[in-house]
């Protein structure tokens, strides 16, 4: 696996698909009104096949590894919330398979000034209940996005752009007023996780936690918690000819071995599996193994609190930890060789992340002598004990923690691992009551989402590292959000990431891993989405 080349690979692949050069690709990103133009190797594996003619009809059963819990359109914080609802709703914009921004419900949009954008809706788009989508529905939806009612959570507002209000200009035109310039708007809309459009008054007419009316390719039949979400084809879907499937079932199967057995027996058509489990299907007749990077990279987090004087308050100790960690070994041992180094922005996230080369040879280089020297300079050559908490499930976190423990022993750090049930972990992480945490980050609508936690005005900063001060870093974090010019923004993002790895290191990004999905060979046109959702199913057909 040539991780060194990953960025080149991605761009090269992207160029092949689109026939554009690297420069053109990046330029197109700029063209989308300063939104993030993201590239991903999404359809890499599917692209190799000759493209047969898509077939209409048939059913698909796909396994979810977690219950969606609820399928309310707004404020669902769990990734699995969106797994349950993503086929039902659309937003104004969307990402294509390679995460380029394009119109969904919006036919076009116009930037009036740096605080005002007009979106013009496609005409004749109908909700599942037959009603036409209008600007009034959009206004209703944006109002709910701004304050998601239960079971949604206001916590997602951290991802909400600075939308001050929305205004109905005409039946098909909705105007968005920003309170200040915000480069994250388009990414937020295209991500569509928190920004679906629902018919006006929907929350009064039904229980949004288990029912819903959207514009998406599939219409909800029923959601039974801990069991399944069932969908049927939306015959009036606005993208003509789609979807191909008549019926879609998302079956909740939390245990991986169950998914393996079900796949083998043909009870499900596809599922996400660990690299080890997926390997059994490689080369087997009747199955195809798909893989791709996702935005969910692993990260080591420290707390730096005022009044405490823990060894890692010293930057040299944090750097020693960083250079004592052998990321390639983690990838090989825990993920069967399928992974890449990650900075604070994961590889594959458009033009934003640092290159693999830069990370491998400089910022995240495995260099034990250097690590030992740093420990010595910090007067910590005899090491220290520390507790690192992590998730008890999925199992790869505990395995990764075990590998890190062996690696840090070499600089005399004795890592005491505590694997916590996810609810407990989330609570402790959120209140900053931990020493070290091994955790993960996920998809963000805009690159700013990855750096917002280094903004001292963000409440979390004061819970995690109140003792850390770095004014020039703070300035860059702020600039990244308000700068609209793409190339300037790109420069800020890169400089900020280098600074985070070189001066701050209050979080040590580790590795990005590949997500494996195994499908039966009757399933065509599926790809693993970088966003960690199952977006590919929208365009899948079955033989």
């Amino acid at each position, binding site marked *: 696996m040539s991780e060194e080349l990953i960025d080149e690979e991605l761009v090269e692949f992207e160029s092949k698909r689109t026939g554009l050069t690297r420069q053109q690709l990046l330029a197109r990103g700029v063209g989308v009104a300063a939104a993030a133009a993201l590239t991903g190797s999404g359809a890499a594996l599917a692209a190799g096949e000759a493209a047969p003619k898509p077939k209409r009809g048939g059913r698909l059963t796909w396994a979810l590894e977690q219950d969606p819990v609820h399928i309310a359109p707004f404020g669902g914080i769990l990734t699995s919330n969106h797994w349950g609802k993503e086929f039902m709703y659309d937003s104004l914009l969307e990402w294509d398979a390679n995460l380029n921004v394009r119109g969904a419900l919006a036919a076009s949009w116009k930037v009036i000034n740096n605080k005002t954008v007009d979106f013009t809706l496609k005409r004749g788009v109908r909700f599942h209940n037959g009603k036409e989508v209008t600007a009034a529905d959009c206004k209703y939806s944006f109002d709910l996005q701004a304050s998601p009612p239960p079971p949604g959570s206001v916590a997602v507002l951290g991802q909400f752009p600075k939308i001050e209000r929305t205004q109905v200009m005409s039946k098909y035109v909705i105007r968005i007023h920003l309170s200040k310039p915000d480069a994250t708007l388009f990414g937020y809309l295209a991500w569509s996780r928190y920004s679906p459009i629902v018919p006006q008054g929907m929350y009064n007419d039904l229980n949004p936690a288990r029912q819903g009316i959207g514009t998406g390719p599939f219409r909800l039949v029923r959601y039974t918690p801990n069991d399944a979400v069932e969908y049927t084809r939306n015959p009036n879907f606005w993208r003509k000819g789609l979807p191909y499937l008549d019926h879609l079932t998302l079956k909740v199967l939390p245990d991986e*071995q169950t998914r*393996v057995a079900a796949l083998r027996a043909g009870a499900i058509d596809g599922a996400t599996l660990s690299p*080890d489990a997926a390997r059994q299907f490689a080369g087997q007749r009747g199955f195809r193994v798909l893989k791709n990077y996702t935005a969910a990279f692993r990260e080591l987090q420290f707390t730096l609190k005022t009044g405490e004087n823990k060894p890692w308050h010293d930057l040299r100790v944090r750097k020693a930890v960083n250079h004592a960690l052998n990321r390639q070994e983690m990838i090989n041992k825990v993920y069967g060789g399928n992974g890449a180094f990650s900075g604070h922005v994961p590889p594959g996230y458009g033009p934003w992340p640092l290159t693999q080369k830069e990370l491998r040879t400089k910022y995240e280089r495995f260099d034990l002598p250097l690590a030992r020297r740093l420990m010595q300079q910090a007067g910590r050559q005899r090491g220290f004990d520390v507790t690192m908490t992590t998730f008890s499930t999925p*199992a790869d976190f505990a*395995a990764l923690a*075990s590998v890190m*423990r*062996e690696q840090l022993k070499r600089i005399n750090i004795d890592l005491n691992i505590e694997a916590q*049930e996810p609810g407990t972990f989330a609570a402790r992480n959120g209140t900053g009551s931990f020493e070290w945490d091994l955790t993960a980050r996920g998809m963000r609508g805009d690159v700013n989402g990855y750096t917002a936690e280094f903004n001292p005005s963000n409440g979390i900063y004061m819970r995690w590292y109140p003792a850390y001060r770095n004014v020039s870093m703070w300035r860059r974090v702020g600039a990244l959000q308000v700068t609209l010019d793409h190339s300037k923004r790109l420069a800020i993002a890169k400089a900020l990431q280098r600074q985070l790895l070189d001066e701050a290191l209050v979080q040590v990004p580790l590795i990005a891993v590949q997500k494996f999905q195994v499908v039966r060979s009757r399933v065509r046109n599926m790809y693993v989405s970088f966003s960690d959702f199952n977006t590919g199913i929208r365009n899948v057909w079955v033989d």
Partner: protein
Amino acid sequence: MSIIRPEGEEHVALEAAGVSAADGAAVLTDGPVPGRRRSRSRWARWRNPIGLIGAGIVGFNVLVALLGRTVYGVDPDAQPAERLLPPSWANPMGTDELGRDVLARIIHGAQVSLQVGVISVSIGLLGGLILGLLGGYFKGLIDSILMRIVDMMFAFPGLVLAIVIAGLLGANRRNAMIAIGVIIMPAFARVVRAAVLELMGFPFIESARALGGGGLRIMTRHLLPNIVAPLTVMVSVYLSTAILSEAALSFLGLGTQPPEASWGGMLNTSRQYLDIAPWLSIFPGAAIMVVVLGFNFLGDGLRDVLDPRIGPRIGGGVSTK
């Protein structure tokens, strides 16, 4: 995880002493022999083959736990080898998903699993003794209140308790042992209470009372020695229960914490590799089975020795998934 306790119901009066099992403490069937035991044939009874085999197995495990590391000096946490290697000369039981030596982990696991067994059973036994002795001795209101508490402990889902304890006190082996101990406690309490209630009817307790023996004295001097036999059997069965419960907690990631090896934890992780690396399941599975066998044989043997009147009966209907 579910823990089964021998059960029964204190509200059933046994009109005919001697028939039993109805009160759940099946091992008590004939009632213990009050007072002193005959020592005549004790030595002969020690030559009980089943018991000796059991003692041998348990003894061997204790030896492995204590000395294994010295004899087989491989670090159970080190990850030098390739992952998922089948058994070979270099790694007699193969390597696991992180390239650790499975034999070294089985040896380390012996220590952990025996510790889990012994400590959680001790917690359950101690708590059960206190609740059962007090309830059985004082009867009446105290008994009623204590038994309602025991009922609640019985009815409380074990998994919930384990999660709450892990959440409150932290997820680690110590707390897993506490959780398991509390989960099996009511079973001990019931058996102890049933035994005490039965003993209270015997004249030697009355005479001890008449001689001015205080409650504490009667409990420790007269009641306790006479419930040792049924408890021995229960303890041996619950030792295996506890080891398996730790496996169930590992399923939720709340048992022994990584990277430390425990048999239950190994068995749980091995599920992921049943297809591609079956040896990861076979060795911890076999280890648990052998130890369970050892404890059960030992328990059977001990009962024959301590309480000759009861037939060669196995176990008291207890244990876990």
